[in-house]
């Protein structure tokens, strides 16, 4: 037990990058000689990115696990089911004219050579229900238009266009440039900036942007609560999500009051 605690303490400092160079090098030697430690580290690293939208973790597993499932997708019953869905969908919206691209796309596999795919990936949900709710509620259609009649520079309109093209990094850069040149804060621009940051998973930056809106002395300040709630919804931070929604729920004149009530009902 004591030995386990000792290893765990070292592992924790190693994974948190809290070791001095010499100790780290020594521990890495230990890791290289210990399959058990390697497995532990691999699992720790894997669970850390379990809900990362940009990641899908692979590991080397038993190829037979995959091989034995192949016939399930090649049997007549499965093929008939697949065909019936295609026919149903074609009747609904017309043939798409292309066969599945996704699974026939050229793919590359590195690492262990094998006749079939070797990589096993795994992941887990970190609040799948909240993810689904985020998709349902995060509509940006109601963002104010930035196009101003007679604006000779058209800088703001360009931000709106970039946003529509989902060029979020450019939205953030442009808003920053406009703000640097201007003496006054444009909250509509800050709103675009915050949503762009949210889309890029820059949560802390997005929260700061929306906070700027919330504490502003403007008629629309309460919109900040809704967009802050969207940050927490995307993060899956239920505690702070509920807190933000309750502020909106307590004020019937606040932006998206009804939607906040409905969302609270869904998550509670």
């Amino acid at each position, binding site marked *: 037990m004591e030995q386990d605690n000792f290893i765990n303490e070292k592992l924790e400092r190693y994974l948190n990058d809290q070791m001095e160079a010499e100790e780290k090098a020594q521990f890495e030697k230990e890791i290289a000689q210990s399959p058990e430690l390697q497995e532990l580290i691999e699992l720790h690293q894997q669970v850390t990115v379990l809900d990362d939208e940009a990641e899908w973790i692979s590991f080397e597993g038993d*190829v037979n696990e995959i091989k034995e499932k192949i016939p*399930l997708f090649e049997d007549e019953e499965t093929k008939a089911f697949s065909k019936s869905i295609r026919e149903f969908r074609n009747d609904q919206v017309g043939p798409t004219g292309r066969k599945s691209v996704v699974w026939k796309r050229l793919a590359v596999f590195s690492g262990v050579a094998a006749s079939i*795919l070797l990589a096993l990936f795994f*992941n887990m949900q970190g609040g*799948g229900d909240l993810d689904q709710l985020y998709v349902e509620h995060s509509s940006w259609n109601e963002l104010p238009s930035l196009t101003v009649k007679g604006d000779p520079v058209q800088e703001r309109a360009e931000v709106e266009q970039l946003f529509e093209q989902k060029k979020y990094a450019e939205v953030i850069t442009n808003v920053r440039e406009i703000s640097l040149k201007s003496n006054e804060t444009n909250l509509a621009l800050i709103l675009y900036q915050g949503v762009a940051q949210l889309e890029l998973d820059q949560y802390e930056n997005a929260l700061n942007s929306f906070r700027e809106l919330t504490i502003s002395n403007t008629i629309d300040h309460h919109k900040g609560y809704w967009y802050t709630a969207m940050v927490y919804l995307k993060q899956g931070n239920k505690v702070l999500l509920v807190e933000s929604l309750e502020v909106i729920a307590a004020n019937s004149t606040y932006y998206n009051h009804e939607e906040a009530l409905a969302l609270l009902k869904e998550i509670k």
Partner: protein
Amino acid sequence: MSKTNDLIPGFLRGEPEILQELYAETYPIVKRYIMSRDGSLKDAEDIFHNALVLLFVKLKNEKLNIQSFENYLFIVCRNMWRRENKKKRVTNNDVSTLVNESVEMSTFYTEQNQWDLYQEKFKELTESCQTILKLVFKKVGYASIVETFEYASETVARQRVFKCKSRLVQLIKRDTRYKRLKTN
């Protein structure tokens, strides 16, 4: 009988009413999810179709312990899309291989089973561990975690996260399904 239990037999028979319901209610959410992450309409159609086929095979071959069919369908679509995105990023045209569709599907089936195992083990953690790990997995900064849980410092928060992760790793390692997947 729950809605999910009502829905499954009709789904397995490919009943048009059930397919209609899934395409009317779940597909728009999946489409929005994929298209807001640089996917095309065609990607959304393909992912949704393949997810339905995967669920058909899964339901035919194992007892699936899910609370909501629609939620699980969304999760499968989401995971398929994440995998596609990851694959796109690591693609190296010099050593490309044409992948057989059944192999791809059976590989994802294995991956999804692994995901289900992790999910099951995650739910065995205490509620506080689940909450804190969800935030860490979502890359929420430790400053926010300290604020949310009112920890004394970031060090305390990190220690708590490590303990929760260790517990999860331990639960996963102990499961016979994990051992099977790791044995070559």
